């Protein structure tokens, strides 16, 4: 019988399990999540899915976070049979993010990867049909990136009354990026 409540596996447990099979795949293991090496990411994901202990057969969700210096692709993977869930991150370069696609492993990833490509610009190698999901093809740039419609000092236009760090910073006006210059 699976556990009564979902167990969140610690990053170390998942990392140790993956290192057992693929030594170089794990880059770092924080408490809440595990960071995979982008180069060997695909076999690590395949291992996660087919391993009996991790049993990652259910890809809960996939999204991308713009960490200014890099773009993290975050995967939440779960096993329904053993009712546990864990988080895996794959860092990618900020200007030209490129990550191996997991669509061949999980069918559910196809649409979520297209959404990540459409809104964040993360290219997924091996995705059967990587095109924009929501926006039309000629849309300039990828809206969810922090540098989209950005202002000097990374200050976001909407929150002038709650300055982020720099108290002296004042809100600026919108400067939409002209098409062609953003990509």
């Amino acid at each position, binding site marked *: 019988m*699976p556990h*009564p*409540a*979902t167990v969140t596996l610690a990053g170390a447990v998942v990392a140790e399990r993956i290192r057992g099979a693929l030594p170089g795949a794990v880059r770092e293991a924080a408490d*809440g999540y595990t960071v995979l090496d982008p180069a060997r990411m695909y076999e690590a994901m395949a291992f996660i899915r087919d391993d009996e202990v991790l049993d990652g*057969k*259910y*890809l*809960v*969700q996939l*999204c991308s*976070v*713009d960490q200014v210096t890099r773009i993290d692709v*975050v995967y*939440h993977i779960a096993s*329904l049979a053993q*009712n546990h*869930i864990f*988080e895996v991150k794959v860092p990618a370069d900020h200007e030209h993010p490129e990550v191996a696609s997991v669509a061949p492993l*999980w*069918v*559910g*990833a*196809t*649409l*979520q990867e297209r*959404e990540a490509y459409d*809104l964040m610009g993360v290219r997924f190698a091996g995705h059967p049909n990587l095109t*924009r*999901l*929501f*926006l*039309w093809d000629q849309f300039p740039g990828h*809206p*969810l990136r922090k540098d*989209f419609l950005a202002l000097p000092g990374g200050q*976001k*236009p*909407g*929150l002038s009354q*709650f300055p*982020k760090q720099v108290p002296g910073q004042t809100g600026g006006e919108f400067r939409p990026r002209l098409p062609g210059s953003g990509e």
Partner: protein
Amino acid sequence: MPLKSEPVEVNIGPQHPSTHGVFRMVATIDGERITDVRMVVGYLHRSMEKLAEERTYTQNIPFTDRMDYLSAINSNLGYCLAVEKLAGIEVPERATVLRVIFSELQRIASHCMATGAFINDCGAWQTPVMYTFRDREKVLDLIEMTCGARITTNYIRIGGVAFDIPDEFLPALDRLVNDDLPQRFDEYDRLLVGNEIILMRARDVGVVTPELAINASLSGPMLRSAGIAWDLRKADPYCDYDTYAFDIPVGYNGDSYDRMVIRIEEMKQSLRIIRQAVHRLTGGPHKTEVPLALRPPEGEAYARIESPKGELGFYVVSDGGPAPYRWHVRAPSLINLSVLKEMTVGQTIADAIVTLGSIDINVGEVDR
């Protein structure tokens, strides 16, 4: 001598009576049979995830109403649970019970809409929709009595609920739950579940195998109709759902008919939950005080709930600022659509419409 017929591409949507919103399905057909389906979404994309990065945590709650506008309270609940998990906020007992009551009421309203629209796609000339909408109106009246709004309720706040229930709420709820809706759901059983023509139209239409259901990370009635007993209220209990006694209805062969019957059974289970929840209503505050410009500590949190459409998850990343650094929503409607091709290719156009109705997508949630 095979007849030469060139494939025709037919647009189903975005203006189509039964695509449940602005959703376009381009089907390549040979005669009546569909050979290929291409899905086009994005007509209702409001880039909520970008907007959410510019507003405080409390200001983001109204976005969740407008995502799945048929089950707004469930979306509010999902987001507030994620923020409370991130900021470590305790929710008083009374607020938790109120949250359970209202999310179950909203589930009944959403399933009423789904069942009615599904039968309408099977061709019953608006009759079942009228019945299910009549019952949905009763539920919405109750919600309006407390939250002030029928659809975009914005009722659940971080740390509790917005308003306490008025005095006439409990008697009205008691009347609705104990002597009004039960007969209605028996009426649905007689009118819809045993209906011969719906059996012929929906049986073995849009079939999903259990393996494909898990691999395509389906959730909600799609998963349970394939024979997998998975309900987040039991698997990952939030708002202490594990203390309530209720069952998960599970289908057999993952077709549209099972999904419809599952939704009707789930409505009955929701009634059971509400009856138990009403007895647990204790005194005490209905919410804890949360600063308006809440600044949760750095970090991230992923919380998920069982919304009527499936597993609705919120992944919130905080950088210590008043606004979420990243705000991502796991939309069950979008992910349930990833098997649209498996379910519709090979069947006729009429079946594709029935299948789409049985998936019960909400385009506001698909496009966000």
